């Protein structure tokens, strides 16, 4: 199983502790303590997942997140001490797939990492259509009129989850469980932010979405194909 995890954290004690826990779970952690060096370390180590602290010396976590996201769709899980709305939303909007609030328990962290890595392991050959988009699940590609649209794995999963059952309205909680792997109802802002990000990529007019339609008071559903 793929298990390279890049830990971007300036707190050496925490980084070491994370290393102990991750190694104990069979991952291969690598470390970087400085926001400025994070991108270089990312390119060098080519991790399967990034654990990113939001508060960093040099470039802050949001900036690092943006830079990584600009060149890769690799899952990013933020470590944050702030569960305040603004911080979390800013972090998610900058491209993080998930976040975990300090102090967390080792098992919680591992569960999150596993959930992010589990996806796209054994993709069945499948062709889906949503709106005027064609989704090749196995090929992990989304095309509109032959033009492929770049999505992060998480956004892709979200789109596939909606496209598989176009008749169903998904509540945010259901999406959290299916896409993020939460078994308890968690923060629905995750869903909101990522739906916005997804729309900005796949919708012709994100103000008037046709692919991912909001069902007011309930959740989201796939637009008519």
């Amino acid at each position: 199983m793929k298990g390279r995890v890049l830990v971007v954290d300036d707190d050496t004690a925490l980084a070491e502790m994370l290393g102990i826990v991750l190694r104990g779970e069979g991952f291969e952690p690598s470390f970087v303590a400085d926001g400025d060096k994070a991108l270089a370390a990312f390119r060098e180590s080519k991790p399967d997942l990034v654990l990113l602290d939001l508060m960093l010396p040099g470039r802050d976590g949001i900036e690092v997140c943006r830079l990584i996201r600009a060149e890769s769709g690799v899952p990013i899980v933020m470590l944050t001490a702030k569960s305040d709305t603004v911080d979390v939303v800013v972090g998610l909007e900058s491209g993080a797939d998930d976040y975990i609030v300090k102090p967390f328990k080792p098992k919680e962290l591992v569960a999150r990492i596993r959930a992010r890595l589990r996806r796209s392991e054994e993709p069945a050959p499948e062709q889906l259509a949503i709106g005027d988009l064609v989704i090749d699940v196995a090929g992990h590609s989304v095309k509109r009129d032959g033009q492929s649209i770049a999505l992060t794995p998480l956004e892709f999963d979200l789109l596939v989850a909606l496209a598989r059952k176009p008749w169903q309205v998904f509540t945010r909680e259901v999406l959290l469980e299916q896409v993020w792997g939460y078994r308890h109802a968690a923060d629905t802002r995750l869903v909101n932010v990522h739906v916005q990000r997804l729309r900005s990529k796949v919708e012709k007019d994100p103000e008037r979405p046709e692919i991912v339609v909001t069902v007011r008071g309930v959740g989201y559903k796939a637009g008519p194909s």
Partner: protein
Amino acid sequence: MSEDSAASSPGRTGAQAGRPVGPKTSGSRWGRFLEGGLLQGGVQGSPVLRLFLRWVRRPLLPVMRLWRRNIQLKVVATTLLMSLGVVLLLGFVVIGQVRNGLLDAKVKASQSQATGGFAVAKQKADEAAAGTGDDSAPADARTEQNVSPWMGDLVESLSSGGQGAFDVVTLPAAAGDDSGGGRGPRASGDVDWAASVPEELRGRVDSYTTAAQSYTRITYDKPGKDSQPALVIGKQVNDPNGDPYQLYYLFPLTQEEKSLSLVKGTLATAGLFVVVLLGAIAWLVVRQVVTPVRMAAGIAERLSAGRLQERMKVTGEDDIARLGEAFNKMAQSLQLKIQQLEDLSRMQRRFVSDVSHELRTPLTTVRMAADVIHEAREDFDPVTARSAELLADQLDRFESLLADLLEISRFDAGAAALEAEPIDLREVVRRVVSGAEPLAERKRTTIRVVGDQQPVVAEADARRVERVLRNLVVNAVEHGEGKDVVVKLAAAGGAVAVAVRDYGVGLKPGEATRVFSRFWRADPARARTTGGTGLGLSIALEDARLHGGWLQAWGEPGGGSQFRLTLPRTADEPLRGSPIPLEPKDSRRHRGLNDAGLPRGGSEKTATVPAQSAGDQTSSRDPIVPRPAALAPSADPTALPGNGARVVPRSTSRPRRQEETAPGEEPRGGTVSRPDTGAQSPPGESAKSSEDQSVESYEQGEAFRGR
């Protein structure tokens, strides 16, 4: 409005049709009037009168409101009224004086004229008497015959002297018994003497020999000639024969009347102008004052609406300008203070955020280290293993306390934001109840949900509402002493409510408000060994407030308690009431009240019907129960534990503590290291307690039936 009155009056008629109300019994005069005139009887006077008055008053209401609200109108109206009064008073005084002056002059002139006339008449009589003096005694009859033309001449000559300025009238003296044909009344200028010379004056002239005067109106025999006011002066004069007759001078006052009416007209015009001008001046003056005041009021309103940069325009140095300056200074300092407070709040928030980060990072390390140690505790000696357990447990507690503290400081800093969206509270309640199910299981408590047949939708922050309800339900289960906990939902009007009822130790008087205090303990003497941060209900209260809702507690000692959360159906809508009464129907007081009138069956019915659905729910929830123990990756990063239990004395503290910490940890998918806690409360005991409960209620039933 007219529909309203039209609709209500027949209703009243109907309601009062049965009453023996005759026309004579109706009290007021108005009533009788209305009954006789407007309505064909049968309706009592007073309500109709009220309707009538309302109908009359209705068009006046806007005027009255304007009067109440508009100082300018008030001042102008007052000025108008007062100046009108002053002008009227002044007018009366001036007119009176002018009249007196005019009449005085006229009277003096008339008197001298009349005196001269009387003298002339006397002289003429003397001359006539002297002319026939030589044969006075035998010529009596002849002289008598001469009087009549003489009188005619006299009147002619006297009146011609005035050239129409006065008229002359002679009348025979009333005393004169012998009124021959020649001594009848004569008048110059077609004067109707009988109407023009007042009776009273004639009497006076008869009685005295001096001149007498009076005011009168001259009327004329000749048609087409209007009567006119006049002064009449009369005197008794002797004719050539020495017989007395009455001679009257009538001076018309037409000229004076004309002058007076001219003065009156002038005064009225001037007065009207003065009043109108004063009104206009008052309007202008008040406007000068009121305009800045209104401006200040408008700006104050805008200031209070949060637009702190609003200022008044100040010109000049007068009082108004000073008001404006003072106002602006006030606004300035207000803005400054608010800015300072905002800065402070921002600093506070920043501080909290920083502290949170600074504390949480090492805590995360400690937490992870502790978990690693805890995992490996089987390899340790018993003392170290136990220490590892304690370390992990207390870290949980420390974490939840820190989380609660940060949450409450976020509320204090005003940094808490509401993310309201329409949610169905039944979903939230279901989640909360299923989350609390394991704890309820341990406590041998059944959680029943009532009123979840229909959707209970409100615009609310699901995360916060869930936190509040979890807190309430966990508290209720923990203090319910194994008796049922009832969660009741209701929606009515613009509000939705969830009430959590337990039948445990309850609250002492006065505690219902204090339970929401931070770190409040029911028994301060007791050691703080139980779990819960003591902040749960405070946070819950803040959460409710953030929604614009209410969180209230009710309780009676030994009779249990009820916590009620009321939320407005749409955010920003003020609450006016709650669909659920704060004091439950089955409180002791209510049962005592119902005892007199209602049978006990009613309350039992409400208790048994939901019990059925509760049973269904518990059975359907059964498979979920083991979940928290199954170490699921159940992370709830944002939901804070907030299980701040209100603590009530309890004999065994250790299992209690663990039970209380447990529910807070469940959503975090915690270190379920205490699957054995349930076993610590012996099943026999709880069975006994439920038995006690049934016996108790049975006895109560008996008591009610007995009474």
